[in-house]
């Protein structure tokens, strides 16, 4: 049964770059599941721009094979259309599955740890079509790789990470390669460092950025279809034992995208709910 589950996760799904679970809502982070821990995430991710609002919701599943290796899958559904650039920070319509490996883990004292996690996943087109220029492309699967490193403690958190997604070509079309990165700082005030049977809160400042390559359509590069954006905003995470709710909003610091091809994106927001099921043995 366990093998079937692992195989299903590894081959049927892809992996979203975003670390939701019980970390920051937009940025890459290092935590992975405990051994035999099952995690479930669901949320709403929005991107609002000059040509409308694009919402995606979905379900994410993670399972800890070992204390440092987690397999995961994310199956989103998208609503609305904004004719927006490709993004791997905010989920689109692609299904994904992959594995995360916390390859470096160092505990330095009570409550503190320094760790690094790498992820590799498959990204496959979901049943829904994209909007804007991306809607006209034949879609093919891609691979997504991410790397995050950082520090966690009872009071402060800091992670930096990056990811790269490359799609295969389909009928002379190709979705743009995406390079994404993030830096996040989190803080839990002293009076909120309470027992685990009380609500646990922390706030984050999340900086994310993405560069998408050019769109290839019918064998030719679509001029000026490459984009670069930079986003900054706060998010809050509230946890009670094995339930976590997080939400955040981001505003653009930099938007280098052709407005003749894409809608002008104004704001990003996310609300995520996590349920963590721990194993007793």
């Amino acid at each position, binding site marked *: 049964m366990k093998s079937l589950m692992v195989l299903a996760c590894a081959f049927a799904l892809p992996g979203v770059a975003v670390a939701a679970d019980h970390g920051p809502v937009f940025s890459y982070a290092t935590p992975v599941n405990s051994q035999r821990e099952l995690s479930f995430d669901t949320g709403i991710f929005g991107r609002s721009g000059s040509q409308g609002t694009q919402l995606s919701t979905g379900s994410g599943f993670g399972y800890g094979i070992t204390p440092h290796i987690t397999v995961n899958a994310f199956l989103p559904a998208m609503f609305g259309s904004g004719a927006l650039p490709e993004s791997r920070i905010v989920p689109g319509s692609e299904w994904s599955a992959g594995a995360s490996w916390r390859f470096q883990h160092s505990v330095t004292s009570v409550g503190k740890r320094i760790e690094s996690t790498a992820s590799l996943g498959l990204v496959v087109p979901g049943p829904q079509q994209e909007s804007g220029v991306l809607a006209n492309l034949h879609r093919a699967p891609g691979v997504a790789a991410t790397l995050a490193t950082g520090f966690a403690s009872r009071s402060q958190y800091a992670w930096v990470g990056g990811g790269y997604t490359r799609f295969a070509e389909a009928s002379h079309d190709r979705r743009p390669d995406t390079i994404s990165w993030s830096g996040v700082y989190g803080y839990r005030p002293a009076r909120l460092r309470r*027992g685990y049977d009380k609500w646990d809160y922390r706030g984050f400042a999340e900086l994310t950025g993405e560069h998408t390559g050019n769109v290839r359509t019918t064998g030719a590069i679509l001029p000026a279809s490459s984009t670069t954006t930079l986003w900054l905003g706060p998010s809050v995470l509230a946890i009670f034992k094995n339930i976590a709710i997080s939400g955040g909003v981001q505003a653009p610091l930099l938007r280098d995208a052709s407005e003749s091809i894409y809608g002008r994106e104004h704001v990003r927001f996310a609300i995520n709910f996590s349920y963590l099921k721990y194993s007793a043995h």
Partner: protein
Amino acid sequence: MKKTLVTGTLALCSLAAHAEYQQVNLTVFGMDCAPCAHAIHVSMKGIPGVDKVDVDLNTGLVIIKLAPDNSATMRQFNQAVEKNGFTHKDATVIARGKLTGTANAAFFEVTGTQDRFAVVPAATGIDIAALLGKTVTIAGVLPQAPKGKLTDTLRYNTITEAR
């Protein structure tokens, strides 16, 4: 003669049944948030014989209280920490078991488990010779062991004959 044997056997069984960990205070490094503590709580509670678990995130202290006649082992407690991706440090234990060996090389065996430790006094001036071969209650510290290993030394603070 037969009656004496039965009585003796029952007495030994009684002693064995009462050899156990009573409380383990385990320091855990790496827990930063509520789910970390909850994970440890669930894992420890899943060990047969564990009665109550308290986790203090700010000190990293996990206090495990055990029911009478349990057969829980230190290895199980350590594994519960490791499978959640954390690190166990020193453990302070109160346990009942048999004192064997000699006055200069004594061992403490938690009967009913595979746990056996060389006992070393945390302070000088404790004479344990009179307790050899008896069931004792011991309070002491099990120093941190590498991942997957169990320390072989128990530094005891107090040792008394068990009632």
